[in-house]
């Protein structure tokens, strides 16, 4: 009898242990949420006090981040980094929940946050949760929903953004095309979704623009996170003759560095990963989007809109990572000049990089 009680007790402990640690980084989330509630209470009291004077001076905006993947994943990592920066400069009070996944938790979390925290703005990535996110947004018209999405904005409060780094991807492609000696370049991508396809296609176009003989080989690993598989895919491309690699995903730069080959990062500046081999890469910067939204919401002029422009080169939302001229062997001056001239043309609007969202071919030369 005693034994059974003991087992039952331990079973309960195990279950609660599992529940506590189950949904991967949930512990972080739990801690964050507690903080939010406290801070919101604080803000609410402040708001009550100043309500009589002006509404605009109600302190920093309360912003919540809702991410389907872990923030270590580069895409959501960029949004998170921009919101963190805004928090550090005192513009917003920021909390977040990540690794929410695509199995129905997004709607629950958004509704909870909308009811309890009542933030001014919710940032996040919709994509796999598109319908759920839009459903919640429609129910809370006073909250600005600003989400990464392949769809359009929805009145009155649902704005969309996306990463549009095809322009710096084109410039990276030019560098790669100029640097390859074997005329074979390898690209390892996650999944062939429009966001990835247009980057890879622009990269291929850039490479072909400076080197008509170039063959860009593209492999998808069908996962956002499997660096070991990405590295194996890159090594297979090296076996097939590739001497420059474009790392759309993590794991590829390691393969390049191991073999003493040039590599290009993606989404954020990856130079420090292998300073001798990482040349550059397209970088997405969400700061302009976040700044704009803070101003709009803070000023009471927010409307639903497509924020595409804020993620492109002209407004500083997309940049080419500083070209690392310290790579082994250096970079030829005429190639540098060519790339910089093209960059200037893009900034001034003289040159437009085509947006091609079709799945890139396995081998660009075969097309």
């Amino acid at each position, binding site marked *: 009898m005693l034994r059974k009680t003991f087992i039952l007790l331990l079973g309960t402990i195990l279950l609660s242990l599992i529940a506590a640690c189950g949904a991967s980084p949930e512990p972080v989330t739990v801690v964050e949420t507690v903080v939010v509630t406290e801070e919101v209470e604080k803000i609410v009291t402040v708001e009550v006090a100043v309500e009589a004077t002006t509404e605009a001076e109600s302190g920093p905006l309360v912003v919540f981040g809702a991410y389907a993947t872990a923030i270590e994943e580069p895409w959501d990592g960029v949004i998170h980094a921009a919101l963190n920066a805004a928090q550090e400069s005192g513009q917003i009070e920021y909390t977040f929940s990540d690794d929410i996944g695509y199995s129905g938790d997004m709607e629950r979390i958004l509704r909870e946050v909308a009811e309890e925290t009542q933030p001014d703005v919710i940032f996040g990535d919709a994509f796999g949760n598109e319908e759920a996110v839009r459903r919640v947004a429609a129910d809370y018209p006073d909250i600005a929903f600003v989400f990464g999405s392949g769809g359009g904005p929805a009145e009155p409060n649902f704005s969309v953004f996306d990463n549009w780094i095809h322009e710096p991807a084109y410039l990276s492609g030019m560098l790669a095309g100029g640097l390859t000696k074997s005329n074979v370049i390898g690209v390892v991508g996650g999944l062939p979704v429009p966001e990835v396809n247009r980057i890879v296609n622009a990269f291929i176009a850039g490479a072909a623009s400076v080197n008509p003989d170039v063959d860009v080989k593209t492999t998808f690993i069908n996962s956002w996170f499997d660096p070991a598989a990405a590295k194996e895919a890159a090594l*297979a491309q090296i076996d097939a003759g590739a001497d420059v690699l474009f790392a759309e995903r993590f794991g590829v730069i390691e393969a390049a560095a191991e073999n003493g080959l040039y590599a290009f990062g993606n989404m954020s500046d990856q130079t420090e990963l292998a300073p001798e081999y990482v040349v550059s890469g397209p970088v997405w910067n969400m700061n302009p989007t976040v700044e704009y939204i803070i101003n709009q919401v803070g000023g009471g002029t927010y409307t639903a809109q497509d924020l595409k422009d804020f993620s492109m080169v002209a407004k500083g939302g997309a940049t080419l990572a500083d070209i690392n001229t310290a790579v082994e062997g250096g970079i030829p001056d005429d190639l540098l000049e060519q790339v910089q001239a093209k960059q200037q043309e893009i900034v001034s609007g003289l040159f437009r990089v085509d947006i091609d969202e079709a799945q890139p071919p396995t081998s660009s030369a075969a097309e």
Partner: protein
Amino acid sequence: MIEATFVTFLVGLLGATLRVATPLLFATIGELYTERSGVLNLGIEGIMFLGAFVGFAIAAKSAEAELAGYLWLGLGGAIVVGLIMGLLMAFFSVTLGVNQHVAGLGITLLSTGLALFGFRMIFGQSSVLPSIEPFAQLSIFGDLPILGPIFEQYLLTYVAFIVLLPLAWWLLYRTNYGLELRSVGENPEAADAAGVNVFRVRYITLALGAALMAIGGAFLSLAQLGAFSPGIIAGRGWVCIALVIFAKWDPIRAMWGALLFGGVFALQLRLQLLDLVDIPFEFFLALPYLVTIAALALAGRNVAYPGAYLKAYRRE
């Protein structure tokens, strides 16, 4: 010219096969031993993940402190955390005798959560993955013409195929411990009557098995990548569960299973690049799994599971 390309293709393929098979072999041998004692450890996926994390975290911190053998410290840490998780699994499945599926999946969830939580605690949220200088590849027969690159492998790959595998076979079939282990997994009552301490043998085996799983995970973070990230194991633990059944609980067959999966994995990456026929890339990516299923269907018929498989032992 065509011949030279073909040789590069084959040599690269063989080298990659051994590399991809290494973590699978470590973890499969670990699971195989565990199951031979009568316990299914579904904590394998999480234990590999935790091993990869702890190994990397200790190595990265030791490298920061400029300790010379930082990679070995990391590997040692992974082994220790593997032993601990194995003992935890043993506590649930041997001492408490709870459902092994639930306990194992619980261990996977717990280990995954702990690793991700610890990763963020220690390394924060950087946009560049923290990395270390990983184990170098040895080129023992590097001078060998043509075939040299095949032997450019990590030390742990050599250990897996030349040390671990024969040792695992010898331990299982030629030692007293191996006999006890097999008898405990087949008929614990008889083993107990013959004076074998069933509980002790299972505890030791689960701890050792989990340590091997952790080494398998740490191979990815300390040798292959020199970095840790979410998704680093990406289901490899579950593949090992299938490989154990394919192997019919025999270490040598487990090696063939790991090589088969690793080989098809490496082959499909290369076939994709050849661009011979217009097949969607998803088909190639699914190939290793399709082959595993096919191999299971063919070789896994009439498998004799260990007699006491999934059964907790009670002295009643």
